[in-house]
């Protein structure tokens, strides 16, 4: 099951040129771009690990691309996303976030039903991948 988080996730995977164009757009707006990775695809897992520092004062996407390539080499089967943070007053939040790398095989999620008092049920979602410990999930 292909997970869909952030922008463009219903589209086919972005090519490097397309990523470059998106990053350029973020840089032209003065947003700080950063690269993050994780192997826990749960939608509520919002805080991913940072790969390097957020890159401030960049003018050209080449530096970001270098970082993405390095991160892909280090974590070839992790989810990797690119974030663009807008620090201007009133926003102070990520303005863009899209996945640039994902594992080949995404096993998806299972629905767990927990029977609690009075015949009611509690539903929760668990990724099959997180059954294994961090680092060997994909």
């Amino acid at each position, binding site marked *: 099951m292909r997970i869909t988080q952030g922008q463009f996730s219903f589209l086919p995977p972005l090519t490097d040129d397309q990523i470059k164009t998106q990053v350029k757009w973020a840089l032209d707006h003065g947003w700080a771009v950063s690269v993050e990775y994780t192997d826990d695809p749960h939608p509520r897992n919002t805080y991913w690990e940072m790969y390097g*520092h957020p890159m401030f004062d960049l003018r*050209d996407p080449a*530096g970001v691309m270098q970082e993405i390539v390095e991160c892909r080499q280090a974590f070839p089967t992790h989810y990797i996303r690119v974030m663009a943070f807008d620090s201007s007053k009133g926003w102070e939040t990520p303005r863009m976030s899209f996945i640039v790398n994902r594992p080949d095989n995404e096993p998806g999620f299972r629905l767990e039903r927990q029977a609690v008092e009075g015949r009611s049920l509690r539903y929760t979602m668990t990724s099959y991948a997180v059954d294994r410990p961090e680092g060997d999930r994909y």
Partner: protein
Amino acid sequence: MSTAQPYVDENGVDTQDERRITLECDGVRHVLDKVNRELVGLAPVKARIGQIAALLMVDRARRELGLTTEPPTLHMSFTGNPGTGKTTMALRMAEILHELSYVRSSHVISVTRDDLVGQYIGHTAPKTKEVIKRAMGGVLFIDEAYYLYRPENERDYGQEAIEILLQAMESDRDDLVVIVAGYKDRMERFFQSNPGLHSRIAHHLEFPNYSADELLTVGDLLLEEQGYHFTEAGRKAFADYLERRMQQPHFSNARSVRNALDRFRLRQAMRLVEQGGSLSAEELTAIDAQEVLASTVFSKESESLPHLPSR
């Protein structure tokens, strides 16, 4: 081209290739004109910049016809005394390279040793890489680059920064143009101890000192920019001032001229305030001989006065 027997001469060049291309040089010519207008003197540098621009234009045309594949090495070194226009030329160079689309934007990141070299082990590499990332797509200008290498301290992290730079200069040639600048003699020693750097830099430009006449023109231009001008006597006195100032230590060409003009303006303002009464526009804009002659350069004991190095 599609004939069964292609016409190829002994060098492997297709003599029947009839494709033609026009050199596009309007944008570049515009920048070169600007260089000519803004920077006084520097004839050898301007000639060299013109040559480089011509080479790049031809190279681009060749590339469009599929005759070259290797991108040219564009890293440069600017050597010369302080105040000879190295930084200004680097800005213009970025514009020229941008016009010819050898860099994607015309921004110049100007750094010195502090921005590249860290303070403790493991600090230098990320710092240098961050600067390189910031400069990508444009020009990285390293002022006083010889400070990067400190042979007297073998634990110095400068060497590490140089190695990372070398790597970036080689592998990111499409994304980054590096210009190193500094005083001539120190840069030569710097290159001697870093032959790898020397060989990766294609263009070594030497900035000559300004002559007294050129400095006088620089002075006129700078005053004009600020809405002032010399009186007849003032200009004569300034020529005299330059003669003397050039003999003194720590003379830094155009920068010294600019500092001197700032002092003249201070003295002129003081004179006008003391004079009081109503002032004409002419009085407000004229720098007279007395402002120039009040300089310590003209006093006999000027030798004994401590001169602060004005870089």
